[in-house]
């Protein structure tokens, strides 16, 4: 099969005992059959999924009635009515309107339409759509036994259509999907999505008790009765950087609560990792991060995007992870009997114990998503190219890619490296697929920078350069979760005043804390992460730890310097933000003003220092926000001092 990833250690690398827990399933290409048989037949075939404990499916209208008649909602309606002086009937009517705006209207005919249309589109866009069938089997089992929550990673608009498409293909129950209201801007498409199982929630409804009550009761009703798997994106939004985003807890809290309250025996969380070889929104994201406003979702915009249909986007890998039982996770962490003394239909802020459990669970799930993300050779190449912005010889790139492959594999990366293909071929086909990002000329590989016609201001030149760097970075970012911990240790070793383990740890913990918005670092895992980093670096021979020291070995130089280079853009970026805050920022700076201000500061810094400062990534609003959050969390002067040392 074309898409079976290869996890044998690379040549020249010692063979390590691979963790048996990390054994991953093989993939099947679901497009293969689509290419050989009728799409129409496929769209019209018999679809009879097995449901949770054999429940009969619930019509959308019946579901709405259950929600509107629930004790939970009645309680809040009366409460709101008492607070506002409005009659309960009126509030009830409001609730009904909210529900109408929110609820899905899943229709099999629409699903069939999508099954047909997407088959056509996928075949043009992608070479393969690969799914781990064992994961599908596990999911099927899980759906019958317990309410299931599907938690896919979110990199593209495509994600949720793709998910439903796959579940339809395998005759599994179609999920209902929490989608942002922005889709509703597209009148027709919004309704189509609604009929394919999406329900819509407002982006923010902070203090709106009634909205929250309708929303949470709607989701819980579906979950408790097991009418359909619930799907939502833990990251809340599409990650524009291809790094996983800090998970949002609202919906996770809602789907876990019925377990704590004993309303269901268990809830199964299924992490799903969707990896795109090329992301459809690639350059859009880079521009968006650089402050070019995100195009509003509109039907006409979507039609314009037809242009993308003519391009090759490589393959997609969808990995359905092992279902995670909330019951087993909560064992010994949350005492469910603390829910015994309060009526279950009265909404209540989760207890501290529960909150930290949900937070922890969210992080673990995102890490599981990361673990099963399939990485392509290009991801490694992008990491190397970003450390050589001036370009590098094709032969050097090839050689270093092979080296990096070995390193990645020994750190258990889920690498899809074509079997039996010569390395040169792998590198050249990767370059071909990503010709919009990198090019080969005169035996040298370098990033492609868009050259607009006519005269160019230094800012414009910088912007164009930044677009290509950020686009490329979105690929490097995909491998960061594999290297993050050892890389932080490498930086810590580089920075620490001595090789004493203690001092290195202090540096490591500073970095860990500082980067905890940028990367997925589970709260409280700092010591564990440090030990893991030490273990991995020792395992690959880059570091040894005699007594209380951590020192580089004779052969450790390439690894450590690669790791230092890997995090350098982040360190430099944070430094620039720190400088801005110390030198330029005025009192009373609002968050709204902050992004444009720090952006123009960064532009000016980069204009002056082109050449030796390579931190184009500081122009990314994502990094700016994360750096600010990190600095706000800590004490600015100490951090400035430490950052200066880095």
């Amino acid at each position: 099969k074309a898409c079976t990833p290869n996890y044998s250690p690379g040549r020249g690398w010692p063979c390590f005992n691979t963790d048996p827990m990390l054994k991953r399933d093989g993939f099947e290409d679901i497009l293969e059959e689509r290419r050989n048989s009728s799409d129409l037949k496929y769209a019209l075939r018999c679809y009879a999924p097995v449901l949770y404990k054999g429940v009969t499916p619930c019509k959308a209208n019946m579901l709405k009635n259950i929600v509107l008649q629930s004790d939970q909602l009645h309680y809040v309606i009366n409460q709101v009515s008492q607070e506002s002086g409005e009659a309960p009937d009126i509030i009830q009517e409001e609730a009904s309107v909210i529900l109408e705006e929110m609820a899905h209207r899943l229709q099999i005919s629409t699903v069939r339409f999508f099954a047909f249309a997407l088959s056509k589109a996928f075949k043009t866009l992608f070479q393969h759509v690969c799914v781990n069938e064992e994961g599908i089997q596990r999911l099927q089992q899980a759906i019958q036994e317990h309410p299931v929550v599907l938690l896919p990673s979110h990199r593209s608009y495509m994600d949720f259509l793709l998910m439903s498409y796959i579940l339809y293909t395998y005759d599994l129950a179609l999920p209902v999907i929490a989608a942002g209201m922005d889709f509703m801007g597209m009148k027709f498409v919004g309704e189509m999505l609604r009929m394919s199982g999406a329900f819509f929630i407002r982006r923010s409804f902070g203090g709106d008790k009634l909205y929250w009550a309708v929303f949470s009761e709607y989701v819980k009703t579906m979950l408790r009765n097991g009418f359909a798997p619930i799907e939502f994106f833990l990251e809340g939004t599409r990650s524009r950087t291809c790094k996983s985003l800090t998970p949002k807890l609202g919906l996770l809290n809602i789907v876990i609560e019925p377990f704590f309250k004993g309303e269901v025996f268990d809830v199964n969380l299924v992490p799903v990792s969707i990896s795109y070889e090329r992301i459809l929104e690639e350059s859009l994201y880079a521009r968006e991060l650089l402050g070019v406003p995100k195009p509003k979702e509109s039907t006409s915009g979507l039609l314009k995007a037809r242009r993308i249909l003519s391009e090759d986007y490589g393959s997609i890998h969808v990995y359905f992870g092992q279902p995670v039982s909330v019951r087993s996770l909560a064992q010994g962490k949350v005492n469910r009997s603390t829910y015994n003394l309060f009526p279950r239909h009265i909404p209540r802020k989760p207890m501290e114990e529960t909150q930290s459990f949900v937070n922890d669970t969210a992080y673990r799930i995102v890490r599981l998503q990361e673990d099963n993300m399939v990485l392509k050779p290009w991801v490694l190449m992008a990491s190397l190219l970003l450390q050589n912005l001036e370009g590098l010889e094709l032969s050097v790139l090839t050689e270093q890619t092979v080296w990096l492959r070995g390193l990645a594999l020994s750190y258990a990366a889920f690498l899809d490296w074509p079997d039996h293909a010569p390395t040169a071929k792998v590198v050249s086909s990767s370059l071909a697929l990503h010709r919009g990002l990198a090019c080969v000329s005169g035996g040298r590989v370098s990033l492609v920078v868009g050259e607009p016609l006519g005269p160019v201001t230094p800012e414009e030149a910088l912007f164009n350069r930044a677009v290509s760097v950020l686009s490329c970075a979105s690929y490097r970012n995909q491998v960061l979760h594999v290297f993050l911990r050892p890389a932080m240790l490498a930086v810590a070793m580089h920075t620490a005043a001595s090789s004493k383990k203690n001092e290195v740890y202090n540096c490591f913990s500073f970095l860990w804390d500082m980067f905890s918005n940028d990367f997925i670092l589970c709260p409280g895992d700092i010591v564990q992460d440090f030990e893991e980093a030490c273990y991995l670096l020792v395992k690959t021979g880059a570091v040894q730890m005699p007594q209380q020291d951590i020192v580089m070995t004779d052969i450790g130089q390439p690894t450590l310097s690669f790791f230092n280079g890997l995090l350098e853009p982040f360190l430099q970026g944070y430094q620039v933000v720190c400088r801005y805050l110390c030198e330029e920022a005025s009192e009373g700076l609002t968050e709204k003003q902050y992004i444009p201000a720090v952006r123009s500061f960064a532009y000016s810094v980069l204009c002056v220092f082109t050449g030796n400062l390579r931190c184009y990534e500081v122009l990314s609003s994502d990094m700016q926000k994360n750096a600010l959050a990190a600095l706000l969390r800590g004490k600015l002067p100490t951090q400035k001092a430490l950052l200066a040392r880095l």
Partner: protein
Amino acid sequence: MGRSSVRVLAAATITMTLTSTVCFPRQEIMKWNGWGYSDSKFLFNKKGQAEFTGKRYSILGMVLPSLQDWFENTFGASVNHKSPATPALNASAVPPASLNEAFVEDLKATGIPFSHEAEDRVFRAHGHCLHEIFALREGKKFERVPDMVVWPNCHNDVVKIVELACKHNVCLIPYGGGTSVTSALECPPEETRCIVSLDTSQMNRILWIDEKNLVAHVEAGIIGQDLERLLNESGYCTGHEPDSMEFSSLGGWVATRASGMKKNVYGNIEDLVIHIKVVTPRGVIEKSCQGPRMSTGPDIHHFILGSEGTLGVVTEVTMKIRPIPEYQKYGSVVFPNFEAGVACLREVAKQRCAPASIRLMDNEQFQFGHALKPQVSSIFTNFVEGLKKFYITKFKGFDPHQLVVATLLFEGDRERVLQHEKQVYDIAATFGGLAAGEDNGQRGYILTFVIAYLRDLGMDYYVVAESFETSVPWDRVLDLCRNVKERINRECKERGVQFQPLTSCRVTQTYDAGACVYFYFAFNYRGLADPVHTYERVEHAAREEILANGGSLSHHHGVGKLRKEWMKESISSLGVGMLQSVKDYVDPDNIFGNRNLL
């Protein structure tokens, strides 16, 4: 309809003790390693059909043709695979009595009968927990049994025994009917003192009946069915009918906070007692009057009720009596599913119109009950049965694997009963319930009396079984039942139980704010190295699940030693401290050293 089931069932009683003066061998008419009377047991006859032996129960001698199929299909067991019990007690498995000679000397002087025969001691060394009966059947060596048994004849005898026990530092364990299912009668293995089992069976007289105030003063060793029978002779009853009433004693009810089937009319034991007399190491606890309610600080009766033999011996109880009801009628209602049944019981409780007893059996128990139907004698009955079944499943569309049945017992004067019956059936109808006749109702109650005999049958064929109970608020009943069953199934699977276990529950009592839920749990243990251990782990998990779902530690079985570990969680460590300080004051030397509860 005649008198309630028990009198119909048990023709003979065990009140033989009054005539016996030397020793009091209950074990002569009762099984030493199983439930109930020696002459009453289930067995599969040579044709493989189930029979019940003996003449005591109304199903006596009857053939139960469907039981074998049900048994084999439910448990994956076979009547060809027997796991017989050891036939007789092996005296060498019983540790020798370690007697406190000085105590024995002083006791002899009082003339109170006692014994240190192995059989007497073993008989009083256990209750009816699965592990206790299983060990007896297997002929396992006993770690610790009482060193001697004493039979006081009256309150003053008890006072003397307790005084001597204090004087000689002897450990006393009160023994009533021996029907405990909480390991409460087990001797603490770490106890080094001489352990004396204080058997109250000889204190079984009704001392007086006060018809003006409708109370009776009774010695606490009296067995439930004797108490009812004797009161009936004077036209009265207590109406307190726990499922164990054939064998359990009044003192035991007080010590465990027992609950009776007909509590809706008569109340639970705490509602029935007017006065309690208790002998403790510090002296006798009594009140000064029989006022029906008092505001004199916390009710000291509530230190005694549920004290599980840790504070002293209940010797005499004054309790409420009622004239025997004029009329009694059983009934039953079939519901399409358990949810509908629970909703109906909740409504009945809300309207406060519960009959003397109302119980809702789940589908598994309904089918179990059906498996106990006797051989149908005429073609006509057969035809009627078939018609009924057709009406319910085909015409009304009830799924035979979903439907549940509520059993009812009404009591009172005839007119009222009929009126009451209509009210309840009307409520049931609004929840889709169909009246299903008196027979089904009565069979439901028979099941409770023979269930313990059936456990013995199961144990003959590699099936272990146990029951446990809880009380839970109304809104959590369904969730608790579902989750506990699922937890049991899951735990069994994880622990290598080969065949899916039987998990069944019934809502067995209703209250204003909640219900009592009773679970049966049984599985085929073939292939398991240590079935009792497996069973205990599963029961432990089930209890954790109950607590996590808002259920109580116990509704009426008590805590004993089996559930001690959850006491702190259940009543807070401060609560445990309060109980402990009472224990420390009343019994500073831990004479009543059964180590229950705390």
